[in-house]
Structure formats: structure tokens, C-alpha cells
């Protein structure tokens, strides 16, 4: 599932990958990419089963993640991270202000719902358009510089948007309280009774409506909102594969490996990076629009720089520059966040009841800072460990394990010739 993403032949020439597209796989993908896409598709659609492996009421039920709210967050942040990866993974430009596009998209979506219709499609389209325009403006300015300067510029723009949304733009953004759909809102095209609070829907299908299936001790929830978001995520994922394998994607990789050389060959890299930036911003807007579609509210904290930092963490943790990495990273972080912050000291005592009392208390005291409210500490440590030991993220970890297993089997041509496996470093970033 992981080793196709860094497929060396597909990376070296764009032409070759387009030739490959005609053999093997479908939908214009190579056989490997198509297989990856199929796996993601199956996992996404069966997620309510896969994420609920433990029976209701059992001690392990707290590890279940198969409830709508969390599953929606998985796919939405997956989209956000895929989009960020198009910029950072391909071109190496580290944007520290990506949450601004998500926030702007969210505001666009909620106004569409407040004014025009509660159907989510116009809202999402509006979110993409608004975020795209904003990304075009920010990108046009920020991309004049590279490296740390680019990071600071994007950060500055994002913080500016946050500060403005928080203060002066309160008539548009609702300030600190943000925007919600209220019972006074009268969308033009939706039939809302007096005093009724409109709900987001897709041609009448409400986002929050769910179908529950009870099988023995298990309870599976199939949520309309999740499946709509999942389909959008799959589309976004498909487009990102196509983009990675296209000649345009090759150009972006060229920017990452050596922008100067690219310029000397007579190519102007600016349109490519700007296009990547805008696409990436539109992905963020799409994620923001979907967020609004799911819970019909938005606040400025969505644009704060910590939110931008989070998507950076997702992409790095999963594996920047790989196809599946950001999705894995987003899912991993959101899952761990949810599960770890639910664990408390009572649960820890239950786990370690078999230890002698003194030792039990000691172990619990040792673990306690890392759980519950200490989730960010765990995240920080995990993130540092990944950057230090696994610069390629979870994907590289998977590849190493796979390579190790192959080596153990002694399959002659040893796929992992470099035991340390230092990936080629991006010389461009931070120039």
C-alpha cells in the first residue's frame, strides 16, 4: 500500500508515467496508483466497520472511532492535508499560513448557506472559489520570496486574516463568536418555516441523518455527511494522484529539486508554483466548505497559526511528498487526538491493575502527563521523533519495515541498498 507512492520510474519522467497510464490501471492511473486508489476507496467506504472493531460497552470500545463526527474529521482533514502536500510535498515551499484559506472558505460557505440555500453544493463551490481567489492574492505576493521568507510571509498573511476576522471584519465574520445558522436566517431558495433552524442538506438529504446497523454487540453508524465528504475526499485524492503524475507535477518537483537550474533552462517557475499554491488553497477551501456543511458554524480560531501548524504536522507525520502520506497523517493525528484525550487516570488504573499497587501508581503517574489534556505533549514528542528519525514520515516507516521483511526473506536483489535510507534532501527549502 505504501511502496508504490515513491515509485522511482514514475518519478523520473513525466512522459513515462503518461505512457504507463495507458497500460495496466484504469481511470488514467498506472496499475500501482490505481491499486492504491482502490485500497483507499474500499477503506473509506468500509470505514464505519473498520473503525468500530470493538463491541459496544466493552472495555476497548473507547478505541472505536466509527462515529460520524470523527469520521467526518478524518476525511475533511485528509483533504486539507492532501492540498497542503501538493504545495509542500511537490514544490518544497513550506507555507505556515494554510489555515487562512480553510477559514476564508468556511466563511464563504456559511454565507452561501445563510443567504442562498441550505444545499451544501453551492456552499462548497463558493468556499473553493473564495479560497482560490484569496490564495491567488496571497500566493502572488508570497511567492516572490522563497525559503524562510516565504514561510514568514504566509504566516503574516494568515495572522492578518485572523486578526481582521477577529476584530474589524466582525460584521462579516461574527468576530469572536463566529457565524452559525440561526432561526432568523432566510435562505432565498430554501423553504424555512418561522423560527425553524435550517439544516445543511444535499437535495433534502440532511447531513446529520444516519443509518444505524446493529449486528450482535456491534453498532455501526452510516452517516450521510460522512459519505458525502468521503466521496469528495476520494475525488480530491484522485485529482492529486493525477496531478502528481502529470507533466505539471514534474515541473513542481523540478522546482523543489533545483529551482535555479530550472530557471536557467529558460523556464519560468513562477506560474507553476503559483498554480500549485492556488490549487493547494482551493483544497483548503474545499475542506473548510465541507466543515461548514457538516456542522454549520465557523469561528476565527480556525485561521489561527496553530491550525496552520497542525496541517504541517499532518503532512510531515504521514510523509510529505507521497500520495497517501498526508491522508495517513491526518487520520493518525485526528484519531490519536480523539482517543488519547479521552483516556483518564481511572482508565489507566484499570489497565495496569495487574501490577503491584506501588508499581501501578508509579506507572500511572508516569503516563499521566501524556494523556487527556496532555495530548499536545504526546503530539509534540511524536512529531519531533518523526522529524529526527523518520524524515519521510509514516510512509517511510512502512517502507523500511517492508524492506526489512524482504531482506529477511533473502530475496536476492535487496530492495533497500541503503540501510540508513536517507532520503534525498530537498536543497531548495530554506534557501
Amino acid at each position, binding site marked *: 500500500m505504501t511502496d508504490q507512492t515513491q515509485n522511482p520510474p514514475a518519478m523520473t519522467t513525466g512522459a513515462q508515467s503518461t505512457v504507463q497510464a495507458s497500460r495496466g490501471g484504469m481511470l488514467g492511473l498506472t496499475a500501482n496508483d490505481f491499486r492504491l486508489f482502490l485500497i483507499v476507496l474500499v477503506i473509506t467506504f468500509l470505514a464505519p466497520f473498520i473503525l468500530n472493531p470493538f463491541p459496544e460497552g466493552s472495555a476497548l470500545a473507547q478505541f472505536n472511532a466509527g462515529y460520524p463526527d470523527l469520521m467526518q474529521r478524518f476525511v475533511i482533514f485528509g483533504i486539507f492535508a492532501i492540498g497542503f502536500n501538493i504545495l509542500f510535498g511537490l514544490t518544497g515551499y513550506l507555507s505556515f499560513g494554510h489555515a487562512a484559506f480553510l477559514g476564508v472558505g468556511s466563511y464563504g460557505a456559511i454565507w452561501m448557506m445563510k443567504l442562498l440555500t441550505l444545499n451544501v453544493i453551492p456552499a462548497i463551490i463558493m468556499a473553493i472559489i473564495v479560497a482560490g481567489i484569496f490564495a491567488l492574492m496571497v500566493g502572488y505576493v508570497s511567492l516572490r520570496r522563497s525559503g524562510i521568507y516565504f514561510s514568514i510571509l504566509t504566516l503574516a498573511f494568515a495572522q492578518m486574516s485572523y486578526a481582521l476576522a477577529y476584530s474589524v471584519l466582525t460584521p462579516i465574520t461574527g468576530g469572536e463568536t463566529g457565524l452559525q445558522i440561526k432561526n432568523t436566517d432566510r435562505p432565498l431558495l430554501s423553504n424555512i418555516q418561522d423560527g425553524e433552524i435550517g439544516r445543511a442538506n444535499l437535495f433534502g438529504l440532511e447531513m446529520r441523518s444516519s443509518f444505524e446497523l446493529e449486528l450482535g454487540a456491534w453498532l455501526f453508524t452510516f452517516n450521510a455527511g460522512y459519505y458525502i465528504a468521503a466521496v469528495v475526499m476520494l475525488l480530491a485524492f484522485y485529482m492529486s494522484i493525477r496531478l502528481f503524475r502529470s507533466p505539471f507535477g514534474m515541473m513542481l518537483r523540478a522546482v523543489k529539486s533545483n529551482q535555479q537550474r530550472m530557471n536557467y533552462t529558460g523556464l519560468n517557475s513562477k506560474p507553476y508554483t503559483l498554480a500549485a499554491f492556488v490549487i493547494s488553497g482551493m483544497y483548503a477551501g474545499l475542506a473548510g466548505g465541507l466543515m461548514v456543511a457538516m456542522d454549520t458554524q465557523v469561528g476565527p480560531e480556525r485561521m489561527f497559526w496553530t491550525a496552520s501548524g497542525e496541517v504541517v504536522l499532518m503532512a510531515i507525520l504521514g510523509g510529505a511528498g507521497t500520495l497517501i502520506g498526508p491522508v495517513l497523517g491526518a487520520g493518525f493525528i485526528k484519531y490519536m487526538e480523539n482517543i488519547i484525550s479521552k483516556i483518564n487516570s481511572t482508565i489507566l488504573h484499570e489497565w495496569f491493575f495487574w501490577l503491584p499497587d506501588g508499581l501501578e501508581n508509579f506507572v500511572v503517574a508516569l503516563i499521566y502527563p501524556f494523556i487527556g489534556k496532555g495530548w499536545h505533549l504526546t503530539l509534540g514528542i511524536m512529531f519531533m521523533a518523526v522529524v529526527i528519525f523518520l524524515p519521510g514520515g509514516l510512509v517511510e516507516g512502512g517502507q523500511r519495515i517492508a524492506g526489512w521483511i524482504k531482506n529477511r526473506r533473502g530475496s536476492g536483489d535487496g530492495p533497500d541498498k541503503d540501510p540508513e535510507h536517507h532520503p534525498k534532501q530537498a536543497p531548495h*527549502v530554506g534557501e
Partner: protein
Amino acid sequence: MDGFILQILNGLDKGSAYALIALGLTLIFGTLGVVNFAHGALFMIGAFCAVTLNRLLTLSYVTEDPSRTDFLGNPAKVETPYVVDWFGESVGLAMIDWVVPLAILFSIPIMVAVGLIMERGLIKHFYKRPHADQILVTFGLAIVLQEIIKYYYGANPIPTPAPEAFVGTFDFGAMLGFEPFTILYPYWRLVYFVFAVILIGAVFAFLQFTTFGMVVRAGMADRETVGLLGINIDRRFTLMFALAAVVAGLAGVMYTPIISPNYHMGMDFLVLSFVVVVVGGMGSLPGAVAAGFLLGILESFASMPVAISIIPGINQIIIYLVAIVILLTRPRGLMGRKGVMEE
């Protein structure tokens, strides 16, 4: 005119903090070539050194005073700090009152230790890695440090007062010959500004007038040659990291009476300090200091009612706006050197 001076004064304390943090950032960047996102955390750790010392000094035991009773008629409980017992009434209470200045002495060894551990334990391994990796790992470190502080000290700001003698304001306007009560300025802010100027001056003097500083400057200009001359430049750069940590820590210690320390104060200042460094010019020490004061004062001018009435919200965004304009018109910042971060 008086309003003008007042705004400059108001900008000075924040500007001082920006300048001190940016100075440390630039020191680290100029010597080690590392973009340290954990520098705000050092500022915060300094502030929490003051909080810790405050708690240590006010550790007390409880005795019952039979001569007084509380409202229920029980003997009143009197808390006596241990320091009062040890050093006598006047010295002990004075120590508690002067906790923030005392914390300067208390924090220096701590900040040196933190700096050395950070550099030797983590950052050393990232010199050969891309800048993006350095940013990311120090960003992770900043999260870890601030969460540790949050775990031990809680999420709420902890007020740490200035010494009694510096509480309140004084009439700066009257001293300059304006109408009385037009320019009122808190004592502690003036103390902070003076302290920052002295500290900045000390750092520059150290770099300019000592042999150690000369070697460091030579190393900043051409690390390889200095190394070839048989000088252990790495060790000196490690000490510069510790120095930068001390500067950030002291900035944090002295800032506690102005803003009650909380676990995210480091990050709040870091984002702005980075902007300051970039505006001043990456790698330029005078640039960092100048830009720090400049942006602090600009921010204060932008929060005047006149400015807000012309451009609403200007006070919130002025620093970022200036940064954008400067980066686009003078890509190297105000005093940036050629060849830094642009090879």
C-alpha cells in the same frame, strides 16, 4: 506632541521584548545557521523562572496566632515564609518583594543549562539537515516545552508583581515641561526598557570588545577559516546559543510584571519576533534590534484612536503589513547582508 511622545514610550517596552528575542534568534541564526522556532519557548521558560522563584520564596509554614481571631472565633492562622525566618523580617520580605530582579540571577544558570542541553542534545544533529527540518524539529520542541510548562503550572496566567517601589506610574510629561498628567508612564516599563538597552549593549560590547566575541564574529563571517586556524569554533558557537537562551530568558523574566506569564506567551511573541528578524534582515544583529524597536513603536502608533478611525483594525495588522511591504521592496530586510539564506 505629547501624544506623540506617549505613543513612542508605549511602544518601547514591547519593542524591547521584540528586540531582545529577535537578537537571540539572530545570534543563533548567524552563528549556527539554525532557524530556531523554540526561541519563544526560551522566553517563556525565563518568565516561568520568575514564577518558580516567586513560589519558592513564598513557601511558608502556618502557625496559629492566639492573640488574634478570625471571624469564626478560631485562632487566626498566620503564614510565615521560610525566608523570613532564615534572613530576618526585613531582608526576607524585601526578597519576596524584589522577586523579579532576583529571578534574573536565578534564571541565568537555568537558561544556560537549557540552552546547552538544547544545542548539544538536539540542534547539533540538525546542522546538515535542510532549513525546513530545523524549523519543524524546533517547532515540535516548542510544543513540547510549552506543554510541559502547562502541565506543571496550569493553563491560567500567573501574576508576578513588580517590586513595590516600581508599581504605579510617574509623570513623564511634567519632567519634559509639558502639562502635568499628559504623559503618564508606568515605572516598570521604563525599567524594562533600560534593562533591555543595557542587555543589548552588553551583548554588542561582548561581541565587539572581547577576544571571544572577536572569534565568534570571525566565525560568523567565515566558519571554515576560523576552524582551520585551530580554533574550536563549534564550542564557541554552542556558548553563543547559551548566550542567546540567556538573553531570551532574561527578556522573559523582566516581562512578567507587564504580562502575567502563561504557557503560550512564548509562541505569541515568537511569531512577531520572526517577523521582526525578517524585517531587520536575517543575520543582522543591529537590524534585529532596530526592527524590534521600530515595529514595537509602530504598533503603538497604530493603536491610536486617530489611526484606527482612518484604517479600522490597523493596530492588529500593522506589523504584518510592514513586514510584507518591506519583504517585497527590500527583500533582504532593512539591514540584511548579502548571501544569507539565499544561496
